[in-house]
């Protein structure tokens, strides 16, 4: 049983998805899907434990040895990604039943569960596999299902948002496919480890360069790296709250993982960061993204949209960490994947609570909400402090590593810029705090009551985790450090 954990990670949610369609009954389906998500989370916990205890796990699908068959290859990095993707997936779905109430028609909720599980399968599949084409397949599984999830809100604005995401996402996926195709053309293999050994990189083979270019742009589109982030704000703002919470915390993070895997495990640090100097291309984009998106966030009136822009900025931080290509820089980037997933997941769930009671996420309607929904807004404030990076929140740990990484390189200006950007976060977070606590309640806020416990508990679980991982970091930054060192040392 234990040796079958890698396929179970994927098979459980994959098989459960069509069962949801067969079950149909709303209550039964939801209960079933939540149970499946938690089981998936359990598998990933077991996987991470095994990887940390005894090193990387390799699993050959169907007993076919690589490079002919598909292999799953799990080291500290992807075990860590699997863990937080499945964890967030489980918590968000637990939060979903009440939150979906108004946003998704009851008759379609069984479909929601099925698509949600498919999306989860896709994201986990990307993280777990050691096969390039398999990455693409899972990428499409997750992408197609996320278009459906976003459109499911049924609000008018959700449809163009989903369509925009569909177009941009497809372009991104196509670019990735072209990149993989070019690499396959040159090596005849799709296995990552095999590819890393065979890919001609010396002397600047043009096909390789083109492949790197397609892959980088494609992945950048998928992870919404500035200036390819155009699809993200609308998609996050108009999707149902549950979907936003889930996608914001997981989807772009998995794309960052793909970037890490390709650059460090397939192309190798020497080729990508010394010969091609990819770091020098990513660093300015990351910094620009951080500043532009943070400044745009300050002026948003739709708070979900504001958080979406903040997400674009946070992707900038992760890419910044990667662009250093040092152990500390990668640790910063990887731990921020995790920390930001917790923070943003928690914040969007708090927004879900607001949406449920106010039927709006406009800042004007949130005036005075601190009085009528104290627990929801308190969660929001703690999450906001995490975004700023106040000590004793997870965001502080990320920031510490980013600055340490910059200073180790002697790049004081980068360190100063990172710190200045967190002041922009103060600006957009505090705007909401002042509105919610010091303004006279709006009409909607006056009538609002506190969100139900079934939503508050999952929200606070994530928000509590941001505080926990702000103090106890062996299971976050510690694992990230291990993953970073493994990446710098090549494939496991």
């Amino acid at each position, binding site marked *: 049983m234990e040796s079958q954990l890698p396929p179970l990670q994927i098979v459980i949610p994959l098989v459960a998805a069509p069962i949801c369609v067969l079950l149909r009954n709303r209550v039964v389906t939801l209960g079933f899907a939540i149970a499946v998500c938690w089981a998936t989370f359990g598998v990933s916990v077991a996987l991470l434990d095994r990887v940390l205890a005894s090193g990387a796990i390799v699993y050959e699908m169907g007993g076919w040895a690589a490079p002919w068959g598909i292999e799953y290859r799990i080291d500290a990095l992807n075990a860590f990604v699997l863990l937080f993707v499945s964890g967030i997936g489980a918590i968000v779905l637990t939060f979903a039943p009440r939150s979906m109430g108004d946003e998704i028609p009851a008759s379609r909720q069984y479909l929601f569960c099925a698509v949600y599980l498919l999306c989860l399968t896709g994201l986990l599949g990307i993280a777990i596999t050691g096969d390039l084409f398999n990455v693409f397949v899972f990428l499409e599984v997750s992408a197609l299902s996320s278009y459906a999830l976003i459109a499911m809100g049924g609000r008018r604005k959700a449809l163009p948002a989903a369509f925009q995401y569909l177009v941009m996402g497809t372009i991104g996926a196509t670019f990735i496919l072209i990149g993989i195709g070019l690499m396959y053309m040159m090596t005849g293999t799709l296995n990552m480890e095999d590819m890393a050994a065979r890919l001609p990189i010396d002397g600047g083979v043009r096909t390789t360069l083109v492949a790197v270019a397609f892959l980088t742009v494609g992945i950048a589109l998928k992870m919404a790296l500035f200036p390819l982030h155009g699809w993200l704000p609308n998609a996050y703002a108009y999707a149902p709250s549950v979907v936003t919470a889930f996608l914001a915390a997981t989807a772009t993070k998995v794309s960052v993982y793909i970037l890490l895997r390709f650059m460090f495990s397939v192309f190798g640090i020497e080729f990508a960061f010394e010969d091609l100097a990819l770091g020098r291309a990513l660093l300015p984009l990351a910094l620009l993204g951080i500043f532009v998106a943070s400044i745009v966030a300050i002026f948003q009136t739709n708070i979900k949209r504001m958080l979406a822009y903040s997400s674009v900025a946070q992707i900038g931080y992760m890419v910044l960490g990667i662009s250093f290509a040092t152990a500390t820089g990668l640790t910063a980037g990887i731990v921020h994947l995790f920390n930001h997933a917790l923070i943003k997941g928690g914040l969007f769930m708090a927004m879900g609570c607001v949406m449920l009671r106010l039927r709006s996420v406009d800042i004007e309607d949130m005036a005075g909400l601190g009085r009528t929904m104290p627990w929801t807004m308190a969660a929001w404030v703690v999450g906001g402090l995490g975004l700023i*990076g106040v*000590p004793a929140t997870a965001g502080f740990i990320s920031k*510490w590593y980013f*600055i*340490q990484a910059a200073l*180790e390189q002697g790049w004081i200006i980068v360190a100063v810029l990172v710190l*200045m950007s967190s002041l922009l976060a*103060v600006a957009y977070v*505090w705007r909401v705090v002042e509105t919610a606590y*010091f303004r006279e309640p709006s009409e909607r806020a006056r009538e609002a009551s506190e969100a139900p416990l079934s939503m508050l508990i999952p929200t606070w679980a994530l928000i509590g985790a941001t505080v926990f991982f702000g103090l106890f970091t062996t299971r976050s930054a510690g694992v990230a450090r291990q993953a970073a060192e493994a990446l710098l040392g090549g494939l496991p």
Partner: protein
Amino acid sequence: MFASPLLTVLVVPLVGALAVGALGARPNAREAATLITATTLFVLVAALVPEVAAGGRPAVELFEVLPGLPIAFELEPLGMLFALVASGLWIVTSLYAIGYMRAHDEENQTRFFVSFAVSIFGAVGVALAGNMLTLFLFYEVLTLATYPLVSHHGTEKAVRGARTYLSVLFTTSIGMLLLAVIWTWVIAGTLDFRPGGILAGRAEGGVLIPLLALYAFGTGKAALMPFHRWLPAAMVAPTPVSALLHAVAVVKAGVFTVMKVIVYIFGLDLLSTTGVSEWLMYAAAFTILTASIVALQQDNLKRRLAYSTVSQLSYIVLGAALANAWGVIGGSMHIAMHAFGKITLFFCAGAIYVAAHKTEISDMRGLGRVMPVTMIAFMIGALSVIGLPPMGGTWSKWYLSLGAADAGQLVLVGVLMVSSLLNIAYLMPIPVRGFLFAPPDGPERPAIKEAPLFCVIPICFTAIGCVVLFFYSTDLLNLLQPLAGP
């Protein structure tokens, strides 16, 4: 209760905050909880004095936040002094706050007292911190816990003031102090406070000067110009907050941090041999004089006191920057001396507001005849802040002048003298107008109308404290002696 008395000390104000919150519906029980917590805290802190005075350094390490960087606490003389001052004056301020808040019928009193207790938790944490990470953590706890106190009234003016407060404190701490801390970590590989410092032999002047600047300006709570604006802005808070937090706990946490960094991160030897801190002496001197001059022009009493605080804080920064024995001892001693003097002045300002509803100095003519006790106390506090005997403030200024002379900085001795004159010029008009001028309208000898007893008793207590400190300064001197090195 815990393995270490330090943890007990830390937990008490937190438990107090919870108790105060739980008793919110019963004001008398709630206030009793505040007083019991404050007293317990003071007793526990005071119980540690003999050990620290004898050279003991109680320490405890909790867990590692980052590899090699634990949350750790260690009590040394400077922290002892700060903890003692903050916890002792909390009792007095609690009494005062009860009188003040009730006389004013303020809203949200439970939130007020809970935030107050959490702020004290932050201040005590700063005092006990055993490394710079722990100190930074509690420094930010203090920033956040005081935010609801500054914005307490919830009016537009209060929210705006609180916004200035938070933005200056966050800009400095996140933008500069954190950078300094991480930079130190990258250079030295440790953030522990060690006698003699951790930077000696690890960094050159080209790094040390910007690093010191980041620490000095990044500690926004020390209100070194041009990062002082938050302090006058914080005056929108109810007076007890201004008294304890913005004359004692918050601002002293700032100068305490600067002093701690100079003594235990840089080390006095490193600074005195390299002259890295010389510019800081002049930056502090500039703040001392400029803030005094600004204070002269303020008609609002609380604002005048706020600028006076800005000026006085730089005395302590100056003492630290001198980086010699007398400078450090004088600066540290000024933490206690100024605390008693300034809290008295703020208490008086609040009492005047409660009893006579006056906030502007120009309206205070003849007030000494209506509120004689308050005005006499104000006079005592003012004399202590100015530094005239027989008030405690005399000694700290004396040692600071000695330190400046020792460092061969005669100009700075002059600055200290001129500043004392300026102090006289902006503080003495208030009692002078109060006692010697006739009230603008009404009878020549109006009836005495003091603030409620809850307000007057704390005022008398801190005023007497100013005098007592004059006679017991040797004890402080003995406690602080180890700071100057063996």
